[in-house]
């Protein structure tokens, strides 16, 4: 009885929510559009150092968002590996010698690495960029991993943590360098914009892949022993 009432209430709430939202979207779509942001953006595009507007927004106009977003990724990575069995992130269960997987691996991995490289390189003037490249790279890693490649760097040691932090650190150093030179935080020095963006994108690709991979492998395997508990509260 209570269950029925509850589902009824939730359904009603969700339907009302959807209805209100759709009405609001419809109304707003009917209002006159005051936005001139795309125009402003294309006017400033040549000052951004890259030709592709989405990349320009991500890594120049709103680079602070991106910096913080990489921070969010790093946080997730940290929180994830803090949960892992401490000795090793290794999951013996996943080391299967599946022949299909092996074949997949042989053909796909090089292809995916090329794709990641292309996406990264394309980011400056065409769709693509660090996120997509990083995701593809991470997917490659997952594939390798499923194929049983050990990947020592994923042990929760200094190397892993350096890898997690690398992209973020480079981004942060670039950001503060201009501030020390007397410009605003995150401003690129004139003339070096494109170079710096490419550098940042490259390291970000690595770090994004690393974080996602770490999160993928750090899920505790079922036979991990309990960590000893010290929390009194």
């Amino acid at each position, binding site marked *: 009885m209570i269950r029925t009432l509850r*589902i009824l209430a*939730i*359904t009603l*709430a*969700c*339907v009302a*929510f*959807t209805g209100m*939202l*759709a009405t609001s*979207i*419809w109304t*707003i*779509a009917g209002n006159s*559009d005051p*936005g001139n*942001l*795309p125009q402003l*953006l294309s006017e400033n595009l040549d000052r951004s150092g890259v030709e592709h*507007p*989405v990349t*320009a*927004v*991500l890594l120049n106009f*709103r680079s602070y*968002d*991106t910096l913080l*977003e990489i921070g*969010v*990724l790093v*946080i*997730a*990575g940290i*929180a*994830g590996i803090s*949960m*892992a069995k401490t000795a090793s992130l290794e999951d013996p269960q996943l080391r299967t010698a599946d022949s299909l997987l092996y074949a997949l691996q042989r053909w796909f991995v090089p292809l995916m690495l090329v794709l990641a490289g292309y996406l990264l390189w394309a980011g400056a003037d065409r769709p693509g*960029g660090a*996120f997509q490249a990083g*995701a593809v790279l991470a997917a490659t890693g997952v594939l390798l991993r499923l194929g049983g490649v050990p990947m020592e760097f994923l042990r929760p040691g200094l190397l892993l943590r350096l890898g997690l932090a690398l992209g973020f650190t480079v981004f942060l150093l670039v950001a503060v360098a201009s501030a020390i030179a007397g410009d605003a935080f995150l401003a690129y020095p004139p003339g070096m914009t494109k170079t710096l963006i490419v550098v940042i994108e490259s390291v970000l690709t690595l770090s*994004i892949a690393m*974080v*996602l991979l770490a*999160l*993928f492998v*750090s*899920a*505790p395997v*079922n036979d*991990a022993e*309990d960590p000893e508990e010290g929390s009194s509260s």
Partner: protein
Amino acid sequence: MTSSLLYALAGAILCGIGLFGLLWLSHLLRKLLAFNIMGSGVFLVMVGLPQHQGGPDPVPQALVLTGIVVAIAATALAVVLIRRYFHLSGMTGLEDEPASPERGPE
């Protein structure tokens, strides 16, 4: 009515579905699916609505890219937590009684 607006409205429906899932489902992974669906809905609204009159707008597209990365980070973290929680307590829901129909014969 443009196709952008159509997608924005679809986003609204996805939001509703996702919200329902988040509130109603008890299995944590299903909640996570619901969260991702709701997230997709929000992103559709975010891009579809401004493009309804103006054509492609790189700003919301960039925002959605950021949003997707944040969402995957949160999802991955949640998966880690859920798996560890299941490992320690054998439960897949947040209710006190471990009566989730999804549980296998452990």
